[in-house]
């Protein structure tokens, strides 16, 4: 449906011009945000990804081939390490299985003790993840666990 304008075009233009004049500021723009609002805006801009993307590396063909070769070799190396570890675990599992089968035949009593489930077993807290800079006393030779109350 055609809707006629409620106000004539000329008067509307004039009113919008008045608004522009009212907001016009010469020189540096000054925001009318309060300090707390600015803080939230800063937080939001820290969270958003805009303008934080580093420039795309433009590699030449030779460099690209070099890069791909290195990445492929690294992935191959990682895969081989992973396969070796998996194989080792498999061997460990099999030897545990064989040992338990053997024990079952030779001494059922010991087998039951060995196969008992240890619920609530925890690793010692003193065991730490290795670092490049270990403590000055790396291993406590006369270690005894704390008495549990």
């Amino acid at each position, binding site marked *: 449906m055609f809707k006629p304008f409620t106000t004539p075009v000329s008067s509307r233009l004039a009113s919008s011009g008045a608004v522009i004049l009212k907001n016009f500021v010469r020189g540096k723009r000054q925001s009318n945000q309060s300090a707390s609002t600015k803080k939230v805006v800063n937080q939001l801009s820290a969270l958003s990804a805009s303008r934080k993307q580093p420039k795309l590396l433009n590699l030449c063909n030779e460099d690209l081939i070099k890069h791909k070769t290195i990445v492929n070799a690294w992935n191959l190396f990682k895969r081989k390490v992973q396969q070796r*570890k998996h194989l080792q*675990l498999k061997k460990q599992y099999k030897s545990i299985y064989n040992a338990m089968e053997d024990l079952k035949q030779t001494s059922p009593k010991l*087998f039951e003790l060995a196969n008992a489930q240890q619920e609530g077993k925890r690793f010692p807290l003193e065991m730490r993840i290795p670092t490049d800079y270990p403590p000055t006393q790396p291993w406590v030779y006369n270690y005894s666990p704390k008495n549990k109350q």
Partner: protein
Amino acid sequence: MSLSKSFVRSFSGSASVHRTGYSTVHPVHHLVKVNKPALKPAYQSLLIPKDDIKSVGFKPSEIDQDRVAEHYENVIKSDLLLHNYQHDSAVIKGNKKRSWGEDSPYKLYRNLKKPKGVSRPTKDVHPIRYDNVPEVSSIIIQAYNRDALEESWLNISTRLQLSQITNVKAKQIYAKANILPWRLRRGKPCGGKVELTGRDMSQFISTLTELVLPRIRTFQGIKNTSGDNNGNITFGLDPEDVKGFPEIENFQELFPNLTGMHITFKTNAGTDDRARTLLSSLGFPFYNP
């Protein structure tokens, strides 16, 4: 078309005779929606996988040693295999949904009956072998901020806090239910959530066990009762404890509104007890409440 229909030549035309039969195959075109603007040549670069150096989203990930993952692979994994080994063990079947029976056609397609004794089905517990040694698959950190229901800008602070701690952009979470006394309304934004995997997860674990948890005076450990029966362990940190993260400790004036958070370790252990042993191997203490 029936074969008995005889060929009759008439002035009206032969179209009705030569018309093919009724097709039972519905046309597929127009049912498959294709987002044609996304096929624009300008967007081709976005289709490159992000681990490719030509992609605009490429981010080098392996820039340093992953201590926690290496320690787990080299030391803990074989110990856990030995610890969890059970001779002659079989899959322990979970409580599953039950059939109503097959003696009546009405029972055949009826929705399955609830499992016996529990409200929802439970999972099977598989014996630990060399290929399913328990490991932490991901860590989920969720921060529900009650005050953000009133002051919506607090959502930004909460999400920034999570992102700052974990190096992963936090997602917004929304209220799921209408609870009037808490002023909760469905769909209201009320905090943030992060899921950590891989290197970010390792970094977070080492920060927690080496820097944050040892400095909390009241911290005794994770409760031995914590867990969802499927091997996922949760514990919480207060806003005071969150101050211990080095990323926040040194910029305290930038984070005046800290929120506590729930930290959930998702593991593939299957049972809570196995999961607790796994977490204790990574340096988390446990205590009996």
